[in-house]
């Protein structure tokens, strides 16, 4: 097994460039990070883009589809969206897009707050090939194989480590 450190700052910069080219960016978008990893990534993007409105954070624990199987997450904290969702262009940020279930839960929660004009999905990493629900990121920093293991740690320094097998390194 080899460990590969990813240059997160470069990924964030790429993502910011891509966000600037979106239609939503011209319409004073508001940003939401998904706790915990997504919040770390969103904080960096939010700072770099110098967005006016405070960053929103959602905790999707109460919206998971496996509550009846695994129960409550003991570390759940309240979601904090300090502005109205209605008619806003939302940039939703997560650290890793994997099965798509987190995205589903996040969208449900956002729609419980209101009806956004649009939602743009940003993911620092995209584990392709293991989606269980039909969600794709609009903007992603890097695609990796489903079989590769990832570790995201943060908030400072925000670090992504990918485990690669000997053969592929």
């Amino acid at each position, binding site marked *: 097994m080899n460990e590969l450190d990813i240059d997160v700052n470069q990924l964030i910069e790429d993502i910011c460039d891509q966000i600037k080219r979106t239609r939503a960016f011209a319409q004073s978008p508001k940003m939401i990070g998904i706790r915990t990893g997504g919040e770390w990534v969103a904080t960096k993007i939010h700072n770099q883009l110098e967005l006016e409105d405070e960053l929103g954070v959602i905790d999707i*624990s*109460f*919206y998971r589809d496996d509550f*009846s*199987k*695994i129960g*409550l997450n003991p570390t*759940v904290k*309240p979601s904090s969206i300090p502005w109205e969702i209605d008619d806003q262009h939302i940039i939703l940020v997560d650290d890793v897009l994997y099965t798509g279930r987190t995205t589903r839960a996040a969208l449900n929660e956002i729609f*419980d707050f209101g009806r956004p004009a649009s939602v743009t999905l940003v993911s620092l990493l995209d584990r392709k090939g293991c989606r269980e629900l039909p969600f794709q990121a609009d903007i992603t920093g890097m695609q990796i194989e489903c079989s590769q293991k990832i570790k995201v740690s943060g908030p400072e320094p925000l670090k992504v480590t990918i485990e690669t097998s000997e053969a592929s390194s």
Partner: protein
Amino acid sequence: MSGRLVARNIQLNELGKLEHFLTLEGLKAHHLTEILDTAESFINPQTNEIRKLPLLRGKSIMNLFFEPSTRTRTTFEIAEKRLSADIESLDIQTSATKKGESLLDTLWNLQAMQADMFVIRHAESGAAHFFAKHVAPHVHVMNAGDGQHAHPTQAMLDMYTIRKHKGDIFDLKVAIVGDVLHSRVVRSQIQALSILEAREIRVIGPKTLMPSDPAAMGVHVYHNIEEGLEGVDVIIMVRLQNERMKSALIPSEKEFFKLYGLTEERLALAKPDAIVMHPGPINRGVEIDSAVADGSQSVILEQVTYGIAVRMAVMAILISNAAQLAQHKAEQESQLQIEGLDSEQDETEKMEDEK
């Protein structure tokens, strides 16, 4: 003591987590803190709003009120709806039990209607416990007040309110004023405060309304309200339990107010930032002066709001614990199966050796 009616730990599952919520007796600080933390996660910190969540979708909850209640019943119903449960509220004073049906028959019938949880208010101490003992294994029971025994969700919402305003409870001096003897609310409050290690718990009232053995409850008794309120952080006023007072234990309501009613002058003896609480319904001019009930130190209406979040928290925790227990058992079972396979293999190997 009616507390003995509740056998130890019937409300805890094999993993030591809450399965029913009947009393605070025998619970640990972590059980209580989990409830308070979960309740907090239901409240939007900016707006104090409690949001609707999909946690108990598909679960059926029945509220069984054998004794009248407005606030408790309504906040339970709101809590259930905010968790997206399907709910049914039965006013049992006017139903089958009047026609002679036994409590156990009532329970079995309601269970046959596919309930996942019962919320019970009953005039008899131990009623919720009785239900918990007889329900099917997947059904949860919550005590919404039984006789003079316990009212644990009320005590927990009081702890939530205190923590919200004062932070950690272990540093605080808390005074409870009024009818301590007849009140299930006070009994539960004292248990909660003891478990969370409040620095000092004082009970204030006439001898006739005080428990016979206060030391066993870990409280200090004051018959003089002025002395009792000196330097406290929290004042909890309790309603005179008229309907539970079989004999005249106080001369008159007017006399009670004169001796023990909370007035602005008396409030001034507590710490300047002390909060005033009351589980309701309040009797203005009997135990509390309107100026205090409506004053800036009163948090009485906040208690009602927090009651929703705290009841949501307990319900979510009961259902969540059941899910975790099932998961745990499934894991153990698959572990056993693997071990079973291993030993079978061993046996085969051994047999080959013998050959």
